[in-house]
């Protein structure tokens, strides 16, 4: 028999920080709260299907789906697509904001798969195998997307002020 599920409050407390950080990096700080609610509503409804060995990857799969839905609704695309559309970064333009916002604004300019992989890895705090699980790709592909993303961030000067 499966192990009993933890109280949802404990599940929420354990994962709320990384989920919000991930969503902020995907849709910006204003819309992240809506996506956060949608994510945990879906998770609570489907709680019995929780993958007990990878609870955070299970949750981030939902969060990623909500972020994609959000972008799709914004873009009002006539047909569903798996990739994130190119939309203006709600973080503003690089160089205008400071601190966290500036860094995530650079992440927002990455190609969709790199952006998702970097956000899942560092904001979602997932291992590569879990990033892969949340994105539905292989662990190698997840690792590659993260590394390509980091390379491009460095090329775009993402750590000009951090490397000192």
């Amino acid at each position: 028999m499966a192990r009993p599920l933890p109280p949802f409050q404990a599940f929420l407390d354990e994962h709320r920080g990384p989920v919000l950080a991930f969503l902020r990096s995907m849709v910006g700080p204003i819309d992240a709260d809506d996506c956060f609610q949608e994510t945990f509503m879906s998770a609570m409804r489907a709680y019995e299907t929780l993958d007990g060995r990878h609870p955070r990857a299970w949750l981030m799969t939902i969060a990623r789906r909500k972020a994609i839905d959000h972008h799709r609704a914004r873009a009002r695309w006539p047909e569903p697509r798996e990739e994130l559309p190119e939309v203006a970064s709600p973080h503003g333009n690089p160089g205008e904001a400071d601190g966290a916002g500036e860094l995530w604004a650079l992440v927002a300019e990455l190609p969709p798969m790199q952006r998702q992989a970097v956000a899942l890895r560092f904001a979602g705090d997932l291992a590569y195998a879990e990033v892969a699980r949340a994105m539905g790709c292989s662990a190698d592909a997840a690792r590659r997307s993260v590394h390509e993303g980091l390379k491009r961030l460095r090329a775009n000067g993402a750590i000009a002020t951090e490397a000192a």
Partner: protein
Amino acid sequence: MSAAADTGALERALREAALADGLAAGNAAAGFAERADREGLVEVAYSTLDTPLGTMLLAETDRGLVRVGLPREAFEDVLAGLADRVSPRLLERPARVDRARRELDQYFAGERRRFDLALDWRLITGPFRCNVLEAISKVPFGEAITYGEAAARAGSPRAHRAAGNALGSNPIPVVIPCHRVVRAGGAIGGYGGGPEMKRFLLRHEGWLPEA
């Protein structure tokens, strides 16, 4: 600077930015909990309550009060037990247990002698346990009966030991007043919340004289 060190700094910066973002999660979580409650997803709501005895925990379902956690219990275990035996869709929602909180506040302030609360009996399993706890629910404030009497009122006069066990497993203490059962010789007997708590309650109700 090497590429590896460079990447390390970037990874650190990303993680730090995420941590800063995650700090706002308290508000987001509160907004979610409110909505989950409004849309009927919360099957067990709980809250803590400060009492003269320490912090207690109150948990409620749509049927009523299902569990009272005493200060001596580990609330993490109490909540895990509720998740396992009632429903894992459990959130802290103080507003949902408002009535129980108010009545317990009044009880400890000496303004209430009986509780007028709906109870959810689902954690009280087995007919004998039910009978014992039902029987002592009728013992009024300020009075006490013996374990033998409790067993007799539950229909099994010689089962005073089993009656003690049934009382010891009372999931809704204080409200179901298992503290109103004492030993025949005059000793107050055991209590899940510890003997001091039982003594406090019996003094509070005037059955034991003030210290």
